[in-house]
């Protein structure tokens, strides 16, 4: 899963100039510095975004045949497509399962590392290390672990007598949510490090004197956690949840590599279906409409979330 780091708020602390200083002449030099980025951004993000919207009203095909305007056909089809809805439900399910552990475990790990004196560097590395591993490697490691015959997990379950060797559990293609949970666990292991780092950074900005003062007043560690640490982490939590929701809703890589949507489409997620429609079925027009449906849903959820948290804060 990819996580887009938010750019830090623009440095608002512009220095106030003494009133006597002459007003600086307007200069366009700065524009040249941002031009390379802006050009790439426009070419590879803004332009395709609008092009996609246009395509969603055409029967544009990957085969290069001339496209014609089909109006709302693709959109109507998308809203009536059972498979698309199924994929959206699966995406929501994945988000629902993966977000809570990715937030809670990140806090727990951060608290742990923040307290650890000697082993701090090791734990920091251990929790963050999986995050730098590419998805292809992560999925390969976990598919070996989950392998029904001779996989690490089943091997130990059999050693402990929890599993019958003649009926090994099929994990990442297992029915009834087994496949989904296999990917959730893989994802948590892989990406929790990023949230952990955000929390750790936030924890280190809390003024130690607050704890000192409260412990003089006789506050226990639990009370400090509930009434000082967590409330002061609120802003970070809001950001982590938003980033995490977006990242989870965009799930594709791990799911595609590990389950391929199986078993029987139980773990087919939205982007996977868009991929199938666009690249296997060559229907760029229809895939564009599907992408916009997902885009709008993510947008609504993000706005809703932002509202919720900013209201809480004020």
């Amino acid at each position, binding site marked *: 899963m*990819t*996580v*887009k*780091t938010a750019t830090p708020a623009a440095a608002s602390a512009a220095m106030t100039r003494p009133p006597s200083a002459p007003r600086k002449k307007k200069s366009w030099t700065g524009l040249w510095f941002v031009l390379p980025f802006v050009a790439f951004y426009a070419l590879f993000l803004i332009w395709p975004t609008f092009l996609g919207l246009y395509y969603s009203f055409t*029967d544009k*095909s*990957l*085969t*290069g*045949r001339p496209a014609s305007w089909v109006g709302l056909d693709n959109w109507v089809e998308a809203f009536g497509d059972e*498979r698309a809805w199924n994929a959206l439900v699966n995406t929501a399910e994945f988000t629902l399962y993966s977000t809570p552990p990715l937030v809670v475990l990140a806090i727990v790990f951060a608290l742990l590392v923040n307290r650890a004196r000697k082993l701090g560097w090791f734990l920091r590395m251990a929790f963050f290390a999986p*995050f730098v591993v*590419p998805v292809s490697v992560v999925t390969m490691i976990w598919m070996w672990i989950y*392998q*029904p*015959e001779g996989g690490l997990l089943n091997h130990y379950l059999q050693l402990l007598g929890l599993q019958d060797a*003649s009926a090994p559990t*099929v994990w990442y*293609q297992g*029915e009834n949510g087994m496949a989904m949970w296999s990917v959730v666990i893989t994802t948590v292991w892989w990406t929790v490090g990023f949230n952990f780092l955000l929390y750790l950074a936030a924890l280190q900005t809390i003024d130690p004197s607050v704890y000192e003062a409260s412990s003089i007043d006789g506050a226990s560690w639990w009370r400090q956690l509930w009434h000082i640490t967590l409330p002061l982490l609120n802003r970070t939590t809001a950001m982590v949840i938003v980033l995490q929701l977006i990242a989870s809703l965009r799930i594709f890589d791990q799911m595609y590599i590990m389950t*391929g*949507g*199986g*078993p*029987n*489409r139980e773990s087919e997620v939205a982007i996977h279906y868009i991929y*199938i429609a666009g*690249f*296997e*079925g*060559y*229907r760029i027009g229809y895939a564009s409409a599907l992408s916009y449906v997902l885009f709008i849903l993510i947008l609504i959820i993000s706005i809703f979330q932002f509202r919720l948290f900013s209201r809480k804060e004020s």
Partner: protein
Amino acid sequence: MPNHPSPPGSVFKRGPSRRALLTGTAAAAGLGLAGCGSVTGGLSDKTRVKQWNLLAGADGAIMTEMHGNFSAEHPDVELEATTFGWGTPFYTRLVMGASSGNAADIATIHLSRLKSVSPDTLLDAITIDELTEAGIDAADFPEKIWEKCFHEDRLYALPLDTHALVNYYNRDVCQQIGALNPDGTLIDTTGRESYFDLLRAAKEVTGEFGTSLDTFGGWRQFWAWYRQADGEMTFGDDDFEMDDDKALQAIETMYLMAEEGLCPTFSDGAQCAANFENGAAAFVQVGNWEINRFKLFGGDNPDWFSMTEMPAFFGNRRTQGDCHSFVLPHHNSWDPEVRKATVEYAAYMLKNSYRWGEGGGHTPSYLPVTESPEYQALQPNAEYSGVVENVQFDPDVWFSGSAARLFDETGSIFLQVYSLAMKPEEALELMKDRIHTLLALPNPVD
């Protein structure tokens, strides 16, 4: 994942002069431009031929070796071969590259996919004159395959080989269960039950399975067994016909075999081959392309296994297969020199496909190679040479063929059958349902 910027200052650590930096940038820009098309000459005076292939398995190593030989014999051609992940990842790249007119000069595809990659718009036809000039003649190929290389009377593909599901057997285990003929080849069985008996005996010895197979590639086994029973699948505009009883019989074969533990309930391509290597199974029904892997596994004893055609379950030894072929992805404009070198490359690969057969296990399509006494004597290839007659290509419809949607969608159903999570009747219904859905999609290649 986020793109981490390179640490600040690292570029300027030694403080290159501004001029050096600018020259470097200009050179880099030049390189970038040179990459935008088939440029003859470029940085060297060689003709560059870009090839894309999907041969990521044991046969890929053989192709790389053949490319080395080609380059050594053609110092004026710079061959740039790229291997992509087998299946959908490869085909999506091919289609996207070709639709912009900037794909490789030549690419490998499965012949069964020719229709699905929209030859009209995405491929460039090959002329017979070009082939003659490169020393290739239409009569050099089996007729049945040669005909499949045409679309609307234009030649789009050059067939490199025929490959199919075959049956590998562990000589040692087969010896123990008395399944070998005096000459060391596997005894013939007739009918599903008599082969299952063989598997039961083998299971006793291995302690795990009788045979191994790829439960993710169930379409291949289905099509082999369905075709053994003379099952047909024909597609109309919005309907299709198939023989339910024969299809059910093929699906039941999977279920019965897995239920009795004669084959694994779950094994992907890699594990399927590993089961055979580590002795968990005495047989493996998989493509001939694993031959090199198994030979290498034997080390000093490459004869630890042999291979033969698929067992006759329903009256004959038909098997599912396909042809690796070369196609020319559509170019906005061809540089005549590149075009010539490209056809020459294809001709070289065909003429030298003995190595492809020996190492890759595929049966070359180029008759002068397969008819040579040298190839005829090649073991174990000679033992399964009959597959060329028995090979069954996938049904004729745009979503069919290796790694196409029919293969994928039915494969995920058969995976469930092997893992005993779905009963054969249920699987058949679902399969028909899925095919109807595929038929309802607009045909993108019409």
